[in-house]
Protein backbone atom coordinates (compact mmCIF):
# COMPACT_ATOMS: atom_id res chain seq x y z
CA UNK A 1 0.00 0.00 0.00
CA UNK A 2 2.94 2.31 0.47
CA UNK A 3 3.33 5.10 -2.03
CA UNK A 4 6.17 7.43 -2.87
CA UNK A 5 4.45 10.78 -3.05
CA UNK A 6 1.21 11.71 -1.33
CA UNK A 7 -0.40 15.05 -2.05
CA UNK A 8 -3.04 16.55 0.19
CA UNK A 9 -5.94 17.59 -2.04
CA UNK A 10 -8.10 20.58 -1.19
CA UNK A 11 -11.81 21.03 -1.76
CA UNK A 12 -14.34 23.54 -0.64
CA UNK A 13 -18.11 23.36 -0.91
CA UNK A 14 -18.16 20.68 -3.56
CA UNK A 15 -15.32 21.93 -5.75
CA UNK A 16 -11.75 20.71 -6.05
CA UNK A 17 -9.33 23.58 -5.54
CA UNK A 18 -6.81 24.24 -8.32
CA UNK A 19 -3.84 23.87 -5.95
CA UNK A 20 -4.64 20.14 -5.91
CA UNK A 21 -3.67 19.81 -9.58
CA UNK A 22 -0.59 21.94 -9.12
CA UNK A 23 0.50 19.62 -6.30
CA UNK A 24 0.00 16.63 -8.60
CA UNK A 25 2.04 18.44 -11.24
CA UNK A 26 4.80 19.02 -8.70
CA UNK A 27 4.65 15.37 -7.54
CA UNK A 28 5.08 14.23 -11.15
CA UNK A 29 8.10 16.49 -11.60
CA UNK A 30 9.65 15.06 -8.44
CA UNK A 31 8.82 11.48 -9.49
CA UNK A 32 10.63 12.04 -12.75
CA UNK A 33 13.76 13.25 -10.98
CA UNK A 34 13.64 10.60 -8.27
CA UNK A 35 13.05 7.74 -10.69
CA UNK A 36 9.63 6.91 -9.24
CA UNK A 37 6.83 5.64 -11.46
CA UNK A 38 4.35 8.46 -11.47
CA UNK A 39 1.66 6.12 -12.78
CA UNK A 40 1.71 4.09 -9.58
CA UNK A 41 3.70 6.04 -7.05
CA UNK A 42 1.81 9.34 -6.83
CA UNK A 43 -1.33 9.36 -4.69
CA UNK A 44 -3.67 11.96 -3.29
CA UNK A 45 -5.68 12.13 -0.10
CA UNK A 46 -8.91 14.10 0.01
CA UNK A 47 -10.46 14.70 3.44
CA UNK A 48 -14.16 15.57 3.62
CA UNK A 49 -17.62 14.09 3.67
CA UNK A 50 -19.31 12.81 0.52
CA UNK A 51 -16.28 13.70 -1.62
CA UNK A 52 -16.18 10.65 -3.89
CA UNK A 53 -17.18 12.58 -7.00
CA UNK A 54 -14.41 15.10 -6.48
CA UNK A 55 -12.02 12.22 -5.80
CA UNK A 56 -12.89 10.77 -9.19
CA UNK A 57 -12.02 14.11 -10.83
CA UNK A 58 -8.65 14.12 -9.09
CA UNK A 59 -8.07 10.52 -10.14
CA UNK A 60 -8.38 11.75 -13.71
CA UNK A 61 -5.61 14.28 -13.19
CA UNK A 62 -2.52 12.26 -12.41
CA UNK A 63 -3.14 10.48 -9.11
CA UNK A 64 -2.67 6.70 -9.22
CA UNK A 65 -5.07 6.50 -6.33
CA UNK A 66 -7.18 9.01 -4.46
CA UNK A 67 -7.84 8.14 -0.85
CA UNK A 68 -11.15 9.65 0.27
CA UNK A 69 -10.80 10.30 3.97
CA UNK A 70 -14.48 10.41 4.85
CA UNK A 71 -16.28 11.29 8.02
CA UNK A 72 -18.70 13.72 9.63
CA UNK A 73 -15.80 15.24 11.58
CA UNK A 74 -14.09 16.10 8.28
CA UNK A 75 -16.99 17.73 6.43
CA UNK A 76 -15.83 21.30 6.89
CA UNK A 77 -12.19 22.12 7.33
CA UNK A 78 -10.91 22.39 10.88
CA UNK A 79 -7.21 22.08 11.61
CA UNK A 80 -7.97 19.72 14.48
CA UNK A 81 -10.09 17.29 12.47
CA UNK A 82 -8.07 17.31 9.27
CA UNK A 83 -4.70 17.01 11.04
CA UNK A 84 -5.82 13.90 12.90
CA UNK A 85 -7.12 12.24 9.73
CA UNK A 86 -4.02 13.12 7.72
CA UNK A 87 -1.63 11.94 10.41
CA UNK A 88 -3.42 8.58 10.49
CA UNK A 89 -3.35 8.20 6.71
CA UNK A 90 0.28 9.21 6.36
CA UNK A 91 1.22 6.63 8.98
CA UNK A 92 -0.68 3.96 7.05
CA UNK A 93 0.70 4.93 3.63
CA UNK A 94 4.27 5.67 4.78
CA UNK A 95 5.05 7.88 1.77
CA UNK A 96 8.54 9.22 1.08
CA UNK A 97 7.17 12.69 0.33
CA UNK A 98 4.02 14.54 1.42
CA UNK A 99 3.01 17.78 -0.30
CA UNK A 100 0.47 20.33 0.94
CA UNK A 101 -0.51 23.58 -0.71
CA UNK A 102 0.81 26.74 0.93
CA UNK A 103 -2.76 27.95 1.21
CA UNK A 104 -4.66 29.15 4.28
CA UNK A 105 -5.72 25.57 5.08
CA UNK A 106 -2.44 24.02 3.96
CA UNK A 107 -0.25 26.18 6.19
CA UNK A 108 -2.76 25.68 9.00
CA UNK A 109 -2.68 21.89 8.98
CA UNK A 110 0.76 20.89 7.63
CA UNK A 111 2.83 21.89 10.70
CA UNK A 112 0.37 20.14 13.02
CA UNK A 113 0.80 16.92 11.05
CA UNK A 114 4.58 17.37 10.87
CA UNK A 115 4.86 17.80 14.64
CA UNK A 116 2.59 14.78 15.12
CA UNK A 117 4.93 12.70 12.98
CA UNK A 118 7.99 14.40 14.47
CA UNK A 119 9.46 15.38 11.10
CA UNK A 120 10.67 18.76 9.82
CA UNK A 121 8.61 20.72 7.28
CA UNK A 122 9.76 22.97 4.43
CA UNK A 123 7.14 25.67 3.85
CA UNK A 124 6.13 27.76 0.83
CA UNK A 125 8.41 25.88 -1.55
CA UNK A 126 8.84 27.02 -5.13
CA UNK A 127 10.83 23.99 -6.19
CA UNK A 128 12.07 20.54 -5.21
CA UNK A 129 15.24 19.18 -6.77
CA UNK A 130 17.61 16.30 -6.25
CA UNK A 131 21.31 16.49 -5.66
CA UNK A 132 22.73 12.98 -5.86
CA UNK A 133 19.64 11.41 -4.31
CA UNK A 134 19.29 14.11 -1.64
CA UNK A 135 16.08 16.11 -1.93
CA UNK A 136 16.51 19.88 -1.74
CA UNK A 137 13.64 22.29 -1.17
CA UNK A 138 13.78 25.83 -2.52
CA UNK A 139 11.86 28.59 -0.74
CA UNK A 140 12.10 32.30 -0.14
CA UNK A 141 13.21 34.02 3.03
CA UNK A 142 13.23 37.71 4.11
CA UNK A 143 10.01 38.25 2.14
CA UNK A 144 11.66 37.40 -1.16
CA UNK A 145 15.00 39.14 -0.76
CA UNK A 146 16.77 35.77 -0.79
CA UNK A 147 16.13 32.21 -1.84
CA UNK A 148 16.89 29.49 0.71
CA UNK A 149 17.72 25.90 -0.21
CA UNK A 150 16.98 23.46 2.62
CA UNK A 151 17.65 19.82 3.31
CA UNK A 152 15.15 18.03 5.55
CA UNK A 153 17.53 15.35 6.77
CA UNK A 154 16.44 12.54 4.49
CA UNK A 155 14.26 10.47 6.84
CA UNK A 156 10.76 9.91 5.39
CA UNK A 157 8.28 11.35 5.10
CA UNK A 158 9.81 14.51 3.69
CA UNK A 159 7.11 17.14 4.12
CA UNK A 160 6.60 20.43 2.34
CA UNK A 161 3.99 23.06 1.55
CA UNK A 162 4.16 24.25 -2.05
CA UNK A 163 3.41 27.80 -3.13
CA UNK A 164 0.75 28.57 -5.71
CA UNK A 165 2.02 28.55 -9.26
CA UNK A 166 5.18 26.57 -8.46
CA UNK A 167 4.21 23.78 -10.86
CA UNK A 168 2.00 23.38 -13.91
CA UNK A 169 -1.27 21.68 -13.01
CA UNK A 170 -1.26 17.97 -13.92
CA UNK A 171 -2.90 17.13 -17.26
CA UNK A 172 -6.27 15.46 -17.61
CA UNK A 173 -6.77 11.97 -19.00
CA UNK A 174 -5.49 9.81 -16.14
CA UNK A 175 -7.40 6.83 -14.78
CA UNK A 176 -6.55 6.52 -11.12
CA UNK A 177 -8.50 4.54 -8.55
CA UNK A 178 -10.62 5.92 -5.74
CA UNK A 179 -10.56 4.31 -2.32
CA UNK A 180 -12.69 5.24 0.65
CA UNK A 181 -11.34 5.14 4.18
CA UNK A 182 -12.84 6.31 7.45
CA UNK A 183 -10.19 7.76 9.71
CA UNK A 184 -10.84 7.31 13.42
CA UNK A 185 -11.69 10.94 14.04
CA UNK A 186 -14.63 11.37 16.38
CA UNK A 187 -16.62 14.53 15.73
CA UNK A 188 -17.47 14.69 19.46
CA UNK A 189 -13.80 14.69 20.41
CA UNK A 190 -12.86 17.63 18.19
CA UNK A 191 -11.73 20.76 19.96
CA UNK A 192 -12.46 22.98 16.98
CA UNK A 193 -15.91 23.74 15.62
CA UNK A 194 -16.49 25.15 12.15
CA UNK A 195 -19.03 27.98 12.21
CA UNK A 196 -19.09 29.51 8.74
CA UNK A 197 -17.20 31.05 5.87
CA UNK A 198 -18.08 34.67 5.34
CA UNK A 199 -17.11 37.53 3.07
CA UNK A 200 -14.77 40.16 4.42
CA UNK A 201 -15.84 43.77 4.48
CA UNK A 202 -16.36 45.37 1.10
CA UNK A 203 -15.22 48.91 0.52
CA UNK A 204 -16.24 51.81 -1.65
CA UNK A 205 -13.56 51.52 -4.35
CA UNK A 206 -13.02 48.68 -6.73
CA UNK A 207 -9.48 48.67 -8.09
CA UNK A 208 -9.98 45.49 -10.10
CA UNK A 209 -11.20 47.45 -13.11
CA UNK A 210 -8.79 50.42 -12.84
CA UNK A 211 -6.68 51.25 -15.89
CA UNK A 212 -4.03 53.21 -14.05
CA UNK A 213 -2.89 52.53 -10.49
CA UNK A 214 -0.25 54.31 -8.43
CA UNK A 215 0.57 52.27 -5.32
CA UNK A 216 2.45 53.17 -2.19
CA UNK A 217 4.06 50.81 0.31
CA UNK A 218 5.57 50.99 3.75
CA UNK A 219 8.33 53.10 2.22
CA UNK A 220 5.90 56.04 2.00
CA UNK A 221 6.24 56.22 5.76
CA UNK A 222 2.88 57.51 6.97
CA UNK A 223 -0.72 58.35 6.15
CA UNK A 224 0.00 62.08 5.85
CA UNK A 225 2.80 61.44 3.35
CA UNK A 226 0.48 59.58 1.01
CA UNK A 227 -0.39 62.85 -0.71
CA UNK A 228 2.62 62.41 -3.03
CA UNK A 229 1.12 59.13 -4.23
CA UNK A 230 -2.35 60.64 -4.52
CA UNK A 231 -1.04 63.60 -6.51
CA UNK A 232 0.62 61.34 -9.05
CA UNK A 233 -2.49 59.17 -9.34
CA UNK A 234 -4.56 62.28 -9.92
CA UNK A 235 -2.19 63.68 -12.55
CA UNK A 236 -2.44 60.36 -14.39
CA UNK A 237 -6.18 60.11 -13.92
CA UNK A 238 -5.70 56.86 -12.00
CA UNK A 239 -6.48 55.23 -8.67
CA UNK A 240 -4.43 54.83 -5.49
CA UNK A 241 -3.33 51.34 -4.49
CA UNK A 242 -1.31 50.02 -1.56
CA UNK A 243 0.63 47.12 -0.14
CA UNK A 244 -0.66 45.34 2.94
CA UNK A 245 1.27 47.20 5.66
CA UNK A 246 -0.29 50.45 4.43
CA UNK A 247 -3.83 49.21 4.97
CA UNK A 248 -2.87 47.27 8.13
CA UNK A 249 -1.62 50.49 9.67
CA UNK A 250 -4.73 52.33 8.58
CA UNK A 251 -2.99 54.75 6.22
CA UNK A 252 -5.61 53.73 3.65
CA UNK A 253 -8.79 51.64 3.88
CA UNK A 254 -8.48 47.90 3.27
CA UNK A 255 -10.07 48.01 -0.20
CA UNK A 256 -6.92 49.69 -1.55
CA UNK A 257 -4.79 46.65 -0.70
CA UNK A 258 -3.42 44.81 -3.71
CA UNK A 259 -2.21 41.22 -3.49
CA UNK A 260 -3.07 37.70 -2.43
CA UNK A 261 -5.23 38.87 0.46
CA UNK A 262 -6.45 41.98 -1.30
CA UNK A 263 -7.53 42.68 -4.87
CA UNK A 264 -5.97 41.42 -8.06
CA UNK A 265 -5.53 44.21 -10.60
CA UNK A 266 -4.81 44.31 -14.33
CA UNK A 267 -4.24 47.97 -15.18
CA UNK A 268 -2.46 49.24 -18.28
CA UNK A 269 -0.04 51.09 -16.00
CA UNK A 270 1.06 50.23 -12.46
CA UNK A 271 3.46 52.45 -10.53
CA UNK A 272 4.87 50.86 -7.33
CA UNK A 273 6.43 53.36 -4.94
CA UNK A 274 8.23 52.20 -1.78
CA UNK A 275 7.00 48.64 -2.22
CA UNK A 276 9.59 45.86 -1.80
CA UNK A 277 7.81 43.30 -3.97
CA UNK A 278 6.91 40.39 -1.68
CA UNK A 279 5.29 37.53 -3.57
CA UNK A 280 1.93 38.19 -1.89
CA UNK A 281 1.93 41.66 -3.43
CA UNK A 282 3.28 40.59 -6.81
CA UNK A 283 0.58 37.98 -7.42
CA UNK A 284 -1.96 40.79 -7.27
CA UNK A 285 -0.33 43.12 -9.82
CA UNK A 286 1.94 41.18 -12.15
CA UNK A 287 -0.79 41.09 -14.77
CA UNK A 288 -0.40 44.85 -15.28
CA UNK A 289 0.52 45.92 -18.81
CA UNK A 290 3.42 48.17 -17.84
CA UNK A 291 5.04 48.30 -14.41
CA UNK A 292 7.19 51.11 -13.07
CA UNK A 293 8.98 50.58 -9.74
CA UNK A 294 10.47 53.33 -7.62
CA UNK A 295 12.48 52.06 -4.67
CA UNK A 296 15.62 53.21 -2.89
CA UNK A 297 16.92 49.64 -2.58
CA UNK A 298 18.49 48.42 -5.85
CA UNK A 299 18.04 44.80 -4.66
CA UNK A 300 14.32 45.06 -3.94
CA UNK A 301 12.49 42.10 -5.56
CA UNK A 302 9.97 44.51 -7.15
CA UNK A 303 12.61 45.28 -9.82
CA UNK A 304 12.37 41.65 -10.89
CA UNK A 305 8.79 42.13 -12.15
CA UNK A 306 8.93 45.77 -13.22
CA UNK A 307 9.46 46.86 -16.82
CA UNK A 308 11.26 49.99 -15.80
CA UNK A 309 12.79 50.93 -12.48
CA UNK A 310 14.16 53.92 -10.65
CA UNK A 311 16.56 53.38 -7.77
CA UNK A 312 16.00 56.40 -5.61
CA UNK A 313 14.00 58.27 -3.01
CA UNK A 314 10.33 58.29 -3.94
CA UNK A 315 9.95 61.74 -2.37
CA UNK A 316 12.31 63.13 -5.02
CA UNK A 317 11.16 61.07 -7.98
CA UNK A 318 7.39 60.96 -7.55
CA UNK A 319 6.78 64.75 -7.28
CA UNK A 320 9.05 65.31 -10.30
CA UNK A 321 7.09 62.73 -12.25
CA UNK A 322 3.78 64.28 -11.19
CA UNK A 323 4.95 67.64 -12.45
CA UNK A 324 6.24 66.22 -15.74
CA UNK A 325 2.94 64.48 -16.34
CA UNK A 326 0.92 67.58 -15.57
CA UNK A 327 3.05 69.48 -18.06
CA UNK A 328 2.76 66.77 -20.67
CA UNK A 329 -0.99 66.81 -20.29
CA UNK A 330 -1.12 70.58 -20.33
CA UNK A 331 -2.38 70.79 -16.75
CA UNK A 332 0.76 72.26 -15.28
Amino acid sequence: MACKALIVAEQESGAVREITYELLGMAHKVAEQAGWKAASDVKAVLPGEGVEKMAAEIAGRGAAEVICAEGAALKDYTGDGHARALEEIIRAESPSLVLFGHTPNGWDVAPVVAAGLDVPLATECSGISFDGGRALFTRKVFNGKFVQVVDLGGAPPLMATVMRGAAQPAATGGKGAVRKVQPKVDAQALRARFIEIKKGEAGGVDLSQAEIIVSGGRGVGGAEKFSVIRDLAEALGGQVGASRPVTDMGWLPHEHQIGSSGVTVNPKLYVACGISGAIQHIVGMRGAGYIIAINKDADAPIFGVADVGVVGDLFEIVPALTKAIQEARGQG
Partner: protein
Amino acid sequence: MVYDRRPIAEIIRRESMKSLVLAKQVPNTDSPFRINADGTWVDEGNLTYGLNDYDRYGLEAVLKLKDAGKVSEVVALTVGPDRASAVLRTCLATGADRAIHIKDDALAGADPLSVAKVIAAAIKDESFSLIVAGLQADDDNYAQTGPLLARLLDRPCATAVMGLELLDGAVRVERELENNRLQVVELQLPAVLTVQTGINEPRYASLKGIMAAKKKEVRAVALSDLGLDAAQVGGAASRMKTVRLEVPPKGEGADIVKGGPEEIAAELVKRIREKTGVI
Protein backbone atom coordinates in the same frame (compact mmCIF):
# COMPACT_ATOMS: atom_id res chain seq x y z
CA MET B 1 -16.84 45.67 52.10
CA VAL B 2 -17.72 44.78 48.55
CA TYR B 3 -18.51 41.19 47.85
CA ASP B 4 -17.52 39.63 44.55
CA ARG B 5 -20.86 38.19 43.49
CA ARG B 6 -19.57 36.32 40.48
CA PRO B 7 -19.83 32.55 40.61
CA ILE B 8 -16.70 31.04 42.14
CA ALA B 9 -15.99 28.98 39.04
CA GLU B 10 -15.88 32.14 36.99
CA ILE B 11 -13.52 33.92 39.34
CA ILE B 12 -11.16 31.00 39.31
CA ARG B 13 -11.29 30.78 35.57
CA ARG B 14 -10.67 34.47 35.08
CA GLU B 15 -7.84 34.59 37.51
CA SER B 16 -6.07 31.71 35.89
CA MET B 17 -6.58 32.95 32.33
CA LYS B 18 -2.91 33.35 31.67
CA SER B 19 -1.77 34.08 28.19
CA LEU B 20 1.55 33.69 26.46
CA VAL B 21 2.71 35.77 23.55
CA LEU B 22 5.63 34.61 21.43
CA ALA B 23 7.97 37.41 20.46
CA LYS B 24 10.74 36.91 17.93
CA GLN B 25 13.53 39.34 17.29
CA VAL B 26 14.11 39.78 13.55
CA PRO B 27 16.26 42.10 11.42
CA ASN B 28 14.45 45.29 10.44
CA THR B 29 13.29 44.99 6.86
CA ASP B 30 15.28 48.07 5.84
CA SER B 31 18.57 46.70 7.20
CA PRO B 32 21.43 46.27 4.72
CA PHE B 33 21.22 42.57 3.88
CA ARG B 34 24.17 40.59 2.61
CA ILE B 35 24.71 36.83 2.39
CA ASN B 36 27.23 35.62 5.00
CA ALA B 37 30.66 34.14 4.33
CA ASP B 38 29.60 30.48 4.29
CA GLY B 39 26.56 31.30 2.18
CA THR B 40 24.00 29.83 4.58
CA TRP B 41 22.32 32.92 6.08
CA VAL B 42 22.62 36.68 6.09
CA ASP B 43 25.62 38.48 7.47
CA GLU B 44 24.40 39.64 10.88
CA GLY B 45 27.12 42.22 11.27
CA ASN B 46 25.31 45.22 9.79
CA LEU B 47 21.76 44.44 10.79
CA THR B 48 19.49 46.32 13.14
CA TYR B 49 16.77 44.37 14.90
CA GLY B 50 13.25 44.77 16.17
CA LEU B 51 10.17 42.84 17.23
CA ASN B 52 8.68 40.78 14.40
CA ASP B 53 5.80 42.79 12.95
CA TYR B 54 3.30 39.93 13.29
CA ASP B 55 4.22 39.62 16.98
CA ARG B 56 3.39 43.28 17.59
CA TYR B 57 -0.13 42.45 16.50
CA GLY B 58 -0.06 39.28 18.64
CA LEU B 59 0.98 41.26 21.71
CA GLU B 60 -1.76 43.81 21.10
CA ALA B 61 -4.35 41.03 20.79
CA VAL B 62 -3.60 39.71 24.29
CA LEU B 63 -3.15 43.17 25.82
CA LYS B 64 -6.64 44.04 24.59
CA LEU B 65 -8.01 40.94 26.32
CA LYS B 66 -6.22 41.96 29.47
CA ASP B 67 -7.62 45.51 29.25
CA ALA B 68 -11.07 43.96 28.95
CA GLY B 69 -10.46 41.90 32.10
CA LYS B 70 -10.63 38.64 30.23
CA VAL B 71 -7.03 37.63 30.71
CA SER B 72 -5.23 37.81 34.05
CA GLU B 73 -1.60 37.80 32.99
CA VAL B 74 0.38 38.36 29.81
CA VAL B 75 3.74 36.62 29.55
CA ALA B 76 6.14 37.25 26.65
CA LEU B 77 8.61 34.58 25.55
CA THR B 78 11.51 34.66 23.14
CA VAL B 79 14.08 32.13 22.02
CA GLY B 80 17.25 33.84 20.90
CA PRO B 81 20.70 35.17 21.76
CA ASP B 82 21.42 37.95 24.29
CA ARG B 83 20.40 40.70 21.84
CA ALA B 84 16.88 39.22 21.72
CA SER B 85 16.22 40.51 25.24
CA ALA B 86 15.44 43.85 23.54
CA VAL B 87 12.14 42.49 22.20
CA LEU B 88 11.17 41.29 25.67
CA ARG B 89 11.83 44.77 27.01
CA THR B 90 9.61 46.12 24.23
CA CYS B 91 6.83 43.71 25.23
CA LEU B 92 7.17 44.54 28.93
CA ALA B 93 7.20 48.28 28.24
CA THR B 94 4.10 47.89 26.09
CA GLY B 95 2.20 46.06 28.82
CA ALA B 96 3.28 42.42 29.22
CA ASP B 97 3.59 41.40 32.89
CA ARG B 98 6.70 39.24 32.79
CA ALA B 99 9.00 37.57 30.30
CA ILE B 100 10.90 34.38 29.63
CA HIS B 101 14.13 34.44 27.63
CA ILE B 102 15.32 31.06 26.41
CA LYS B 103 18.94 31.44 25.39
CA ASP B 104 21.60 28.89 24.82
CA ASP B 105 24.50 28.94 22.38
CA ALA B 106 23.52 25.42 21.33
CA LEU B 107 20.27 26.81 19.90
CA ALA B 108 21.97 28.76 17.09
CA GLY B 109 20.62 27.35 13.83
CA ALA B 110 17.88 25.31 15.52
CA ASP B 111 15.05 24.42 13.13
CA PRO B 112 11.45 25.46 13.92
CA LEU B 113 10.50 22.01 15.24
CA SER B 114 13.38 22.21 17.73
CA VAL B 115 12.42 25.76 18.73
CA ALA B 116 8.82 24.63 19.27
CA LYS B 117 10.04 21.72 21.42
CA VAL B 118 12.10 24.06 23.54
CA ILE B 119 9.16 26.44 24.01
CA ALA B 120 6.89 23.52 24.91
CA ALA B 121 9.38 22.35 27.55
CA ALA B 122 9.77 25.84 29.00
CA ILE B 123 6.03 26.33 29.58
CA LYS B 124 4.99 22.82 30.59
CA ASP B 125 4.47 23.77 34.24
CA GLU B 126 2.51 26.92 33.43
CA SER B 127 -1.08 26.56 32.35
CA PHE B 128 -1.54 29.13 29.62
CA SER B 129 -5.12 29.26 28.39
CA LEU B 130 -4.19 31.16 25.28
CA ILE B 131 -0.93 31.16 23.37
CA VAL B 132 -0.55 33.73 20.62
CA ALA B 133 2.21 33.67 18.01
CA GLY B 134 2.69 35.54 14.75
CA LEU B 135 1.57 33.98 11.46
CA GLN B 136 5.18 34.13 10.32
CA ALA B 137 8.55 35.61 11.08
CA ASP B 138 9.82 38.30 8.72
CA ASP B 139 13.26 36.65 8.53
CA ASP B 140 12.76 32.91 7.93
CA ASN B 141 9.12 33.20 6.74
CA TYR B 142 8.55 29.63 8.03
CA ALA B 143 4.96 30.20 9.20
CA GLN B 144 4.98 27.06 11.32
CA THR B 145 6.16 27.64 14.89
CA GLY B 146 2.65 28.31 16.29
CA PRO B 147 0.93 25.21 14.88
CA LEU B 148 3.98 23.03 15.66
CA LEU B 149 3.77 24.14 19.28
CA ALA B 150 0.02 23.51 19.32
CA ARG B 151 0.53 19.87 18.32
CA LEU B 152 3.38 19.35 20.78
CA LEU B 153 1.08 20.64 23.56
CA ASP B 154 -1.90 18.76 22.08
CA ARG B 155 -4.02 21.89 21.74
CA PRO B 156 -6.22 23.12 18.91
CA CYS B 157 -4.80 25.85 16.69
CA ALA B 158 -5.96 28.46 14.19
CA THR B 159 -3.64 30.45 11.92
CA ALA B 160 -3.83 33.86 10.20
CA VAL B 161 -6.34 35.13 12.71
CA MET B 162 -7.97 38.47 11.81
CA GLY B 163 -10.49 38.61 14.64
CA LEU B 164 -10.96 36.96 18.00
CA GLU B 165 -13.48 36.89 20.79
CA LEU B 166 -13.20 35.02 24.08
CA LEU B 167 -16.25 32.97 24.96
CA ASP B 168 -16.87 30.71 27.94
CA GLY B 169 -14.08 28.14 27.73
CA ALA B 170 -13.55 28.79 24.05
CA VAL B 171 -12.25 31.35 21.61
CA ARG B 172 -14.06 32.28 18.43
CA VAL B 173 -11.71 33.37 15.68
CA GLU B 174 -11.86 34.58 12.09
CA ARG B 175 -9.17 33.04 9.91
CA GLU B 176 -8.15 34.93 6.80
CA LEU B 177 -8.79 32.96 3.61
CA GLU B 178 -8.11 33.99 0.02
CA ASN B 179 -10.36 36.33 -2.00
CA ASN B 180 -11.44 38.47 0.92
CA ARG B 181 -13.13 35.66 2.82
CA LEU B 182 -12.90 34.59 6.43
CA GLN B 183 -13.45 31.25 8.14
CA VAL B 184 -15.16 31.53 11.51
CA VAL B 185 -14.15 28.72 13.86
CA GLU B 186 -14.41 28.09 17.59
CA LEU B 187 -11.54 26.51 19.49
CA GLN B 188 -11.79 25.03 22.95
CA LEU B 189 -9.38 26.56 25.44
CA PRO B 190 -6.51 26.11 25.99
CA ALA B 191 -5.68 26.97 22.40
CA VAL B 192 -2.93 28.36 20.18
CA LEU B 193 -3.50 31.16 17.66
CA THR B 194 -1.27 32.81 15.09
CA VAL B 195 -2.23 36.32 14.11
CA GLN B 196 -2.13 38.06 10.76
CA THR B 197 -1.02 41.69 10.52
CA GLY B 198 -3.87 44.20 10.53
CA ILE B 199 -5.94 42.33 13.14
CA ASN B 200 -5.74 45.37 15.45
CA GLU B 201 -3.87 48.64 15.96
CA PRO B 202 -0.79 47.89 18.04
CA ARG B 203 -0.09 50.40 20.78
CA TYR B 204 3.33 51.81 21.49
CA ALA B 205 5.14 51.77 24.81
CA SER B 206 4.56 54.87 26.94
CA LEU B 207 7.29 56.50 28.99
CA LYS B 208 5.54 55.20 32.08
CA GLY B 209 5.50 51.73 30.55
CA ILE B 210 9.21 51.91 29.82
CA MET B 211 9.93 52.87 33.44
CA ALA B 212 7.63 50.17 34.81
CA ALA B 213 9.26 47.54 32.59
CA LYS B 214 12.52 47.92 34.48
CA LYS B 215 10.95 46.31 37.54
CA LYS B 216 9.35 43.42 35.70
CA GLU B 217 10.73 39.90 35.81
CA VAL B 218 12.70 38.46 32.90
CA ARG B 219 13.58 34.85 33.55
CA ALA B 220 16.57 33.56 31.60
CA VAL B 221 16.40 29.88 30.81
CA ALA B 222 19.07 27.59 29.33
CA LEU B 223 18.57 24.15 27.82
CA SER B 224 19.97 22.49 30.95
CA ASP B 225 17.30 24.25 33.07
CA LEU B 226 14.68 22.60 30.90
CA GLY B 227 16.21 19.16 31.16
CA LEU B 228 16.82 19.26 27.42
CA ASP B 229 19.85 18.00 25.61
CA ALA B 230 21.51 19.96 22.80
CA ALA B 231 21.87 16.61 21.01
CA GLN B 232 18.07 16.57 20.63
CA VAL B 233 17.03 20.16 20.14
CA GLY B 234 20.24 22.07 19.43
CA GLY B 235 21.11 23.66 16.11
CA ALA B 236 23.68 20.98 15.32
CA ALA B 237 21.05 18.27 15.80
CA SER B 238 18.34 19.99 13.74
CA ARG B 239 17.22 17.91 10.79
CA MET B 240 16.21 20.86 8.64
CA LYS B 241 19.35 22.60 7.47
CA THR B 242 19.99 25.53 5.20
CA VAL B 243 22.22 24.29 2.42
CA ARG B 244 22.63 27.74 0.91
CA LEU B 245 21.13 31.18 0.49
CA GLU B 246 20.99 32.72 -2.96
CA VAL B 247 20.09 36.01 -4.55
CA PRO B 248 16.82 35.39 -6.42
CA PRO B 249 17.12 35.04 -10.19
CA LYS B 250 16.45 38.49 -11.63
CA GLY B 251 14.86 37.23 -14.83
CA GLU B 252 14.71 39.99 -17.38
CA GLY B 253 14.44 42.52 -14.62
CA ALA B 254 13.59 46.18 -14.89
CA ASP B 255 15.37 48.55 -17.19
CA ILE B 256 16.85 51.02 -14.70
CA VAL B 257 16.50 54.70 -15.58
CA LYS B 258 19.21 56.96 -14.21
CA GLY B 259 19.81 60.68 -13.86
CA GLY B 260 18.45 63.60 -11.84
CA PRO B 261 14.77 63.59 -10.81
CA GLU B 262 13.73 65.82 -13.75
CA GLU B 263 15.62 63.75 -16.29
CA ILE B 264 14.14 60.56 -14.88
CA ALA B 265 10.65 62.05 -14.88
CA ALA B 266 10.98 63.11 -18.53
CA GLU B 267 12.20 59.64 -19.50
CA LEU B 268 9.33 57.97 -17.62
CA VAL B 269 6.77 60.23 -19.32
CA LYS B 270 8.21 59.23 -22.68
CA ARG B 271 7.98 55.54 -21.87
CA ILE B 272 4.49 55.77 -20.42
CA ARG B 273 3.43 57.44 -23.69
CA GLU B 274 5.08 54.84 -25.89
CA LYS B 275 4.23 51.73 -23.91
CA THR B 276 0.80 52.41 -22.47
CA GLY B 277 -0.81 55.22 -24.39
CA VAL B 278 -2.47 56.50 -21.22
CA ILE B 279 -1.06 59.99 -21.69
